């Protein structure tokens, strides 16, 4: 493959957020050859030592993970009484965390499946670690239903397993649908992630110096040699998996929302929940991708692959989904008034001005006001600002779930049964510890697996345009992956 050098965008270009008429903005900056991409990405995995910051972060993550371990052990040995749950508030931090983490997981599939089917080429820079994030977030999410059942050793009752009691999970209950939705989502996401990684694992295998690395990457690369037939089958499989996981983006959080929507509790019993939850999930997921991408690209020198344009695009998604979430919030209030149901009205007035008013207004400021700042390109393309704002969104989305779950339960139909939920140290430790689990897995991923989908990124570079008619004007003629990744 000859290297094209007439690209007008080559040279030290750092701002690719400008759209010039007649040209496609480059998605890879300052790199002319495939080899440079490979070297940049593999450097992270091949370095003898990770950056110092990695060790600091990893130590902190392990510390939090052990907090999680301690809290869960204490919970199992003592019982769910160690949480601050009480009679009306039987779900609080546990399910808040579950919904929060499942929501975070949604960006991965959206980027990997829906943006793939829509041929959004900018997804290639971020899909690998967004998918990794999805998988780790679903692992965190899966922890919570498992431990909140009280008798953890009976957690397998979640699954329909034949037993002497002739007792089955309630198939009419959305809690069971949840089990299937989340486990399907996890399986498909994992398969999708792994399938996409096979060519890159082969690259790492071929470049590996040590025997252990060769063996480990070699086994997981499944004997990939980059032959035409390999690519052909790979592309088919990838497309099929993309098509399979596309409905999951919409279905999983819809099913999670049914946990609430199918109940009769005012504040939960709302038809807007499924789309509202899905929008919120994508909103929070993209915020988490930005939160992770900003430090990762700095730390591992990936700024030319995860460019400002990628971040800009993600911030636009945050803006759109943030508007949807804001619309849903206001629509909930409108329906509460329009329905004329006094309990419904009370639930929402209580949400905004009742005992948990502060949680509600944290949620509104973080989820409705914060994303509006992304209308300004200056803010969308400012690294420090987007980092801070994305964290605000994460905080806001956690509070959204808290508000929905706790305020609705704490003040239901009967004033005599009202109560206040106050978290205990175990509640807080478990919530914080889940971040430890998430970051431990994520940091291990950064160090040992290819963080960027090299093979895919190469396909969106100007030099992979077979027509070569001035790479700057490349219209990306379906030239995906048509190259041996190992040279």
């Amino acid at each position: 493959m000859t290297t094209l050098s007439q690209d007008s965008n080559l040279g030290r270009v750092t701002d690719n957020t400008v759209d010039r008429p007649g040209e496609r903005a480059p998605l890879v900056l300052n790199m002319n050859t495939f080899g440079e991409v490979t070297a940049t990405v593999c450097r992270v995995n091949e370095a003898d030592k990770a950056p110092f910051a990695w060790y600091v972060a990893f130590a902190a993550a392990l510390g939090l993970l052990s907090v999680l371990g301690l809290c869960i052990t204490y919970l199992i040995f003592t019982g769910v009484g160690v949480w601050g749950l009480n009679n009306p508030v039987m779900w609080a931090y546990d399910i808040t965390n579950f919904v929060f983490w499942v929501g975070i997981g949604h960006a991965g599939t959206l980027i990997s499946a829906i943006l793939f089917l829509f041929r959004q080429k900018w997804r290639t820079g971020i899909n690998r670690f967004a998918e990794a994030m999805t998988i780790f977030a679903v692992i965190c999410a899966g922890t919570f239903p498992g431990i909140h059942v009280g008798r953890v050793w009976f957690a397998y009752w979640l699954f329909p397993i034949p037993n002497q009691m002739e007792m089955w999970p309630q198939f009419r209950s959305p809690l069971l649908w949840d089990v299937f939705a989340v486990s399907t989502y996890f399986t498909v996401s994992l398969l999708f992630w792994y399938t996409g990684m096979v060519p890159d694992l082969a690259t790492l295998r071929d470049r590996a110096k040590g025997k252990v690395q060769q063996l480990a990457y070699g086994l997981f690369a499944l004997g990939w040699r980059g032959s035409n037939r390999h690519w052909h089958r790979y592309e088919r499989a990838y497309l099929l998996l993309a098509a399979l996981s596309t409905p999951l983006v919409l279905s999983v959080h819809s099913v999670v929302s049914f946990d609430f929507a199918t109940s009769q509790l005012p504040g939960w019993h709302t038809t807007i929940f499924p789309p509202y939850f899905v929008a919120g999930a994508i909103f929070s997921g993209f915020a988490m991708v930005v939160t992770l991408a900003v430090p990762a690209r700095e730390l591992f020198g990936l700024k030319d692959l995860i460019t400002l344009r990628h971040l800009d695009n993600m911030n636009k998604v945050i803006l759109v989904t943030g508007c949807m979430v804001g619309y849903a919030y206001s629509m909930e209030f409108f329906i509460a008034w329009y329905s004329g149901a006094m309990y419904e009205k009370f639930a929402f007035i209580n949400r905004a001005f009742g005992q948990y008013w502060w949680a509600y207004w944290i949620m509104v400021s973080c989820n409705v006001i914060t994303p509006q700042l992304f209308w300004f390109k200056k803010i969308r393309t400012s690294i420090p600002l987007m980092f801070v704002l994305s964290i605000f969104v994460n905080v806001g989305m956690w509070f959204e779930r808290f508000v929905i779950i706790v305020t609705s339960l704490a003040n239901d139909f009967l004033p005599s049964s009202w109560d206040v939920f106050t978290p205990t140290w175990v509640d807080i430790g478990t919530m914080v510890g889940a971040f430890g689990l998430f970051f431990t897995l994520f940091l291990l991923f950064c160090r040992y697996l290819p963080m960027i989908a090299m093979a895919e990124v190469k396909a969106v570079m100007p030099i992979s345009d077979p027509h070569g008619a001035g790479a700057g004007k490349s219209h990306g003629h379906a030239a995906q992956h048509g190259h041996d990744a190992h040279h």
Partner: protein
Amino acid sequence: MSRFLFPKWSNLLLPTIILSGAIIPLYAVFFVAYGFSPKTLEVGYQPEQPVPFSHALHAGELGMDCRYCHTSVEKGAHASVPATQTCMNCHTQVRPQSPKLAKVRESYDTGLPVEWTRIHKLPDFAYFDHSAHVNRGIGCVTCHGRIDTMEVVYQKSPLSMGWCLDCHRNPEQNLRPVSEITNLSWDQQTELSADERKALKDKFHINPSEDCSTCHR
């Protein structure tokens, strides 16, 4: 080619993954479903009793009614184990010196009960009432089997929750007239037609509940 690809032995990985990922979990499910079930673990439990009391002799050959000894079965939750006094009603006259009865005589003299080994055990969290069943057409034999042929009594039914539910969901098959409750050789399946059993269900107003709180109170 010097590069490491996919060594031949690694072909074994795929079957290993399929085995551990699919077959072993499947096996575990079946192992638990059948291996751990009371049908496997409990049925046939036949402990040695302190006194070699033969139900085959007393209930079978001599034709004594179950209720002669298990007096509270129609009135209470438990079918009581008889007091030593009940044995001695006859055994002061019948074979009073038999060495097999040494423990019974000892109990009679000291006033301490014979320590029979319990066979049919329900967990503490399961509520069961004998009177509710025997007064409404469930015979002894349905759960306990042909006690009148057992030299040493053993557990015939699994007493599992599924087994309870089988009858609660479909009680007609086990109904008989109250007059035949203790008749162990009488079989409602052959003696009664399905319609007659159905009629019994209506007569006894049998509408067995499957709510959790029916048994787990």
